[in-house]
């Protein structure tokens, strides 16, 4: 049984299978999760919630570790600059 979930990443619709994390949705959308202190694009590194590179704003809450969050229908994900 495969269901799909639609989330929005920086306003763009991204459709993923259910059970996908937000971090994976970011990589699928080709978007870096965040911009570092000196301006570098960054994406997930550790995949297990300890490196904090995958942080995004979800539903208005900043600094969410996207690799630890499952995509839910209608989620609004924005990147932090």
């Amino acid at each position: 049984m495969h269901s799909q979930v639609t989330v929005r990443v920086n306003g763009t619709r991204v459709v993923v299978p259910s059970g996908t994390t937000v971090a994976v949705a970011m990589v699928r959308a080709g978007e870096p999760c965040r911009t570092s202190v000196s301006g570098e694009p960054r994406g997930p590194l550790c995949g297990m919630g300890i490196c904090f590179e995958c942080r995004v704003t979800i539903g208005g809450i900043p600094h969410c570790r996207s690799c630890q969050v499952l995509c839910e229908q209608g989620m609004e994900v924005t990147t932090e600059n």
Partner: protein
Amino acid sequence: MAAAARAAECGVRVGIVDDNFRLGGQIWRGESDGRQKTDASPWAERVRASGVTVLCGLRVAHQQESGVLVAETPNGFCELTYEKLVLATGARERFLPFPGWTLPNVMGAGGLQAMVKCGLPIRGKRVVVAGTGPLLLAVAAYLHQHGAEVMMICEQAAWADLASFVLALFRWPGKILQGIRLKRDLAGVPFAENSWPLAAHGQQTLESVTISHAGKAESIPCDYLACGFHLVPNIELPSLLGCAVANGCVQVDDFQRTTVPSVFCAGEPTGVGGVESALIEGQIAGLAAAGRVTEAEALLGERRKARRFARLLDRTFRLRSELRGLPLSETLVCRCEDVSYSRLRQHSSWRAAKLHTRCGMGPCQGRVCGPATQFLFKWNPDSVRPPVFPVRVETLAAVTGQLPAQYSEVTGGQ
């Protein structure tokens, strides 16, 4: 999971707390929900059947008073009151800096595997797997099985060390079988020992990797670099609780007791030994915590064997000194605060570097840059202070004894 199941099967009231949204940790990520039959299944079933309370999505912040932990939940916080505590906080990958390592799509070896398990499409993607440790082979095999094009596995260990490792496996016949299976799963995948990444290249994301192979630099175009240098025990929570630590591992006796009364520690934090070691130690800790010393004693023989394997892993996969020469002056070492190698090199200690450059002051709390600088500069880390993981102000401000009781009789898994 092993500790919880064994203790609960003795009739003790047990709760498991995990930051991840499902049980299974890193090795068994996604395998505990019963959809497929894997090594995790029997233990997952035993956890379910024995009535363990499973609390996922919780991270422990600190201990307010003896016997009471404060943890953050997805929407709030709670107290965890215990008579006995088993710490099975696992390990994380060791990351070492090299030029380009901060590019998106450069991930840990376990990191990329975790992402694939959580839905990252990998079929047809070109992957270079690099670093050190048995995790590299396991990850390469997993990716290969799921349709990735594994361009090369680059293991920094020397041929002689790997050969000794293979020969020493005669003590653990089960592992020889595992090894044979792995070799079969990885047929056709190029493997290079004495090999390590020199640089990752790309504009906005990874486009290619330059590796050192047989003394020469070789460039490999790829989509992902899965790179990790073995494992670092997660000793932060044990340290915060006052458990004695030596050589980066929590000190325990044969029954997994730490130096803090009522606190046990099992698995990777006591010394990186892999799945078998974790299962044995977990069971011993669970039984001992439940007061079943005789039953725990029955497992001590296997424990000794497992610890011997852990020591073998340490020896085989120790880091070579060439890896200290990988970062360039401008290569970032602290990724949270973007501190470069050249800025760090000016300081004589972790503490001085932290104070003057902010290295280690970011949200990862030194989990990435700490082991890297320990290897690069031989610095010793600082003492651990709360919160042991970033949590909301309201969680740190929680006053124990005044919170409403939650999860009091919740049973069953998720």
